[in-house]
């Protein structure tokens, strides 16, 4: 019985395929698929089959019938005279629609805020023109610190400063809110750097802050490691190097293993296998005190990273000016990204 089914399938399929017009197809259909056709004939023999075999054979017959009917329907469509609507060159592309794109900095920034968002950091925002109080004084920047110099920082004639980092947002947030504070502040920052391939007087940062009871430097390390693993891959490693920042004590520079060569050494990490990502540390007690938090009760960590450099590394952009030139040949290359 199985052989018969199989044989009939081959025979009928061949006949359906070779029918060259609708009349011929109709004849084939009658022969095999009509009520008195050959398939129906096989169904009639089902009674003679072993009771144990019967369900299986029955299933095979049903499949056969369905397959042949599908093939018949396909062939009918193919042999019918076609409507003009379908008489087109299908190799032409679609009509086209305007294709927008996110700026590479937005792509990277969103990825970063998304990761931190999943770790419970809220996005806070603040002004780009700042008071010296918020940009320097309350961040524990000593009066003599070179970052305050007019050669490094842009000022307005009235003494306002064009922010040099996004940490003033952290101070403003702490002033308004009691601990726990868990925020990141992404945004534009400004320095008096002449533009060249790696410097721009305007660039982008994300800074993070977590203040609560019992926050430790080990947690800072853990948070940053988790973040960089999400950003650059689970095999990323991180190290702290001692450094000095007025805002934090102790302070650390953060290095991660080069994600481009998997820490084997390449041009990007200058064969050191490490990439420097930014500063971090435990919020200086002076800063906590300045916003009215008791450093005997609360401690906190803070960190920062540069977005432009990450975007440049990520996409292999050789010159920072490309980011800010609004050249659509550059911008269009990023239309394949839909960030969260």
């Amino acid at each position: 019985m199985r052989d018969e089914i199989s044989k009939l399938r081959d025979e009928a399929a061949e006949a359906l395929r070779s029918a060259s017009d609708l009349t011929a197809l109709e004849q084939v259909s009658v022969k095999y698929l009509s009520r008195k056709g050959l398939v129906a004939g096989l169904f009639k023999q089902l009674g003679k089959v072993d009771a144990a075999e019967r369900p299986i054979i029955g299933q095979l017959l049903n499949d056969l019938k369905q397959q042949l009917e599908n093939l018949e329907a396909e062939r009918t469509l193919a042999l019918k005279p076609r409507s003009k609507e379908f008489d087109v060159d299908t190799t032409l592309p679609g009509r086209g629609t305007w294709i927008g794109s996110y700026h590479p900095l937005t792509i990277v920034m969103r990825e970063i805020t998304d990761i931190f968002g999943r770790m419970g950091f809220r996005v806070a925002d603040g002004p780009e023109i700042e008071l010296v109080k918020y940009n320097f004084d309350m961040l524990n920047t000593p009066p003599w610190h070179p970052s305050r110099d007019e050669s490094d920082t842009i000022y307005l004639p009235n003494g306002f400063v064009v922010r040099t980092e996004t940490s003033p947002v952290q101070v403003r947030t702490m002033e308004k809110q009691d601990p726990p504070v868990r925020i990141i502040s992404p945004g534009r920052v400004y320095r008096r750097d002449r533009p060249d391939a790696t410097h721009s007087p305007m660039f982008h940062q994300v800074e993070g802050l977590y203040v609560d009871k019992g926050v430790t430097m080990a947690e800072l390390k853990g948070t940053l490691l988790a973040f960089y693993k999400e950003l650059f891959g689970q095999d990323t490693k991180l190290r702290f190097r001692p450094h000095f920042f007025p805002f934090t004590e102790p302070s650390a520079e953060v290095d991660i293993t080069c994600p481009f060569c998997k820490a084997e050494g390449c041009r990007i990490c200058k064969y050191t296998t490490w990439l420097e990502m930014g500063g971090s540390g435990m919020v200086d007690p002076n800063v906590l005190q300045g916003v009215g938090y008791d450093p005997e009760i609360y401690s906190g960590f803070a960190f920062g990273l540069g977005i432009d450099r990450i975007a440049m590394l990520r996409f292999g952009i050789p010159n920072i000016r490309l980011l800010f030139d609004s050249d659509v040949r550059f911008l269009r290359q990023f239309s394949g990204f839909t960030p969260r």
Partner: protein
Amino acid sequence: MLLSYKWLSEFVTLPVSPEQLADVLTWLGLEVEAVHTYAPNLDNVVIGEILECAPIEGTNHLSLTKTRVGGETLSIVCGAPNARAGLKVVAMLAGSKTAEGMVIKKAKLRGQESHGMLASEQELGLAPSHAGIIECPADWEVGAPAAKYLQDSDTVYDVEITPNRPDFLSHIGVARDIAAKFKLPWKPKSYDLNECVRKSTDFVRVKISAPVACPRYLTRGVTGVKIAPAPYEVQLRLLRCGVRPISNVVDVTNYLMLETGQPLHAFDARYIADNSIDIRFAGAGESFVTLDEKEHKLQSHDLLIADSKHGIALAGIMGGLNSEIREDTTDVVIECAYFDPVHVRRTAKSLGMSTDSSRRFERGCDPNQVPYVAAATAALIQQWGGGEVLSGVVDDYPRPIVPVEIAFRPEKTEALIGVQYDFAEIEDTLTRLGCEVSAHSSAWTVKAPTHRPDLEREVDLIEEIVRVQGYDQIPTSESSKVVLTGKDDPVVRLRRQVEDILVAQGFLQTVSLSMWNPEPRLDPPGLPAGVEVANPVTDEMKYLQGSVLAPMLRAAAANFERGDRDLRLFETTRVFREGVAGDPRTWEKQVVAGLLVGRRYPSGWSQTKEPSDFFDLKSVLEFLALKLSLDKPDIFCYDLDTVGFLSGQLRVGEQVAGDFGLWPREVCAARDIDASVAWFELDLSVLAANRRSEFAFEPLPRFPIAWRDLSVVLDHSVPFAELVSTVRGAAGNLLQSVWPFDVFVSDKLGVGKKSVAFRLEFLHPERSLDAAEVDAAIQSIVTKLQQEHSAELR
């Protein structure tokens, strides 16, 4: 700061190789920027003596020398300016190799045979110097292999010192941290001092008239010194550490500064009038010439070292030309002082000077190291230049600076870092760094050494412990606490949505510098310049932008020039204007701005080619308003006759969210754009403040909608909006919606006429409408349109 491996190892037996030390320095917080290795190859290099030296005709710097190298005398061509007869030199003979790998051969230079090369430190790989050829001491033996005197290798680290660590500006300071890190014994260095009977106090008198700016001033005298070059190995060490050797006395001061971090100065005693020194503030406008021969006009906050007549040094910054050590100096007054950082910094800054001395005083030197360093100075001057060291010192130190006492709770280290630190280890580390620790109870008292002015608080000590014991000991722990501290900033959230909406509408997002300088004849009219900055980076960045539109048009023009003429650009940024004094938040607003120029549809094989216009702009705004669920948005357009070009305001609620419009070709032509450009700039905070927060589903109509199309001819001047309000007024409340589906102007309709076709949809919420009802409504609409607008049915 350049640090020598050999020099460091004079204080502590370094347990690591020169290669490994770079990492050790990094882990102590000294960022190593470069490592220089000096390992001279002295094969076929000998000591020689120039017997004759004559310039070669037709060259401007070459000389032909006859140089004796042991038994024979060679002709050697030399280009160094200091080549001269009688000089002992280092001669590289044929077969020797320079540090750059060049093999020296016999050669003909400018027609002259040259049988070798007279070497500089650079060529031998001894030190980075281009000053000329090496001038060997007179007692070096001609013909001896150079290796006898010059086999001196070292590794030098160029490190960046953070501003909190003045002690790192010395070999002693760095060696101390290395010793603490490896728990190694300290090798103290002592200088033997042979004092004569005559006393320093009889030699010079000191008065401090400005005790706050100068808490300590110590001098010693050395008489009968012979000025000469310092020993060659000292010169080499100075060169390798970036200091030019000058003479034995001056080199002593530099040498000890690099060793101890204490800046020193040496005066020629002949030029200290009346042998009296007064440390006083300058008179306003007082003029002073420093030893770099620059004249400075001083202010009354500038501290001077003066004799009875005039200034002889700019305190802590640079000595005066009038009292510097000269070739014929014999009697030397050594200055070893502690100047207040704030005063030195102020003067250095206002005079625009930064010297090895000022950099150290600005960060804070150790006032209590002064006597030791002064004695070392005297000892070395005597050792290298002879003479007699006067006994004792003149030391003015009215209010001694004592170590800071810090209350320290050792368990706080674990609390802040998150890992346990052994108390005995803590005590050991602090002690090795020079602290005096009284660890008798749970509350310790720690006296921070005066060479560490950065140690003031408990947390500073914690940092030291963690740093010295290693940042790699800090574990990695992830918090499992749940911290819900609110939502993202509402404007930030809106900005993200605006970006999504405009990208979906085919706009490319740009990010551009928010500083610019207007070009009035080229930029579109009516845009604010913004806020002028006091110290712009360049002239092109004089203002924080008042609007991003003009910069965007410039960007569009650059793209146009490259042949990209279909542009849809947007940017979310900030614009600036003067606000409330004292509140910078009122000086800026966050905006989204966009430009639209070129075709309406992207070029393709089946798209129509007409240019986009004002109504394409309006659809973008309508889309944005809808997608942002703005509350009662009104895209209000100005009367063209009043404004002069197509433009309007987006209003939401009671507020104005921003402007939009179409710059005509004439405006854009200034930027070589031969098209009109549509634009908008909207205030994100206003948009964020006017969003509908509530939404309720409306039940679907239970009865069918009845619709009719009407087409009327009327005066071109009648706005569609008026037509709609007439229609609504006449139709009654069955009318659901009305929208135009065809509008055209043609003279065939009559001069100044247009045709407007629109669809009307009618609905009754509770029953089916019958045709008669709808027809009646249409009839009254037609009548009303005729009455009010003389509109005729087509």
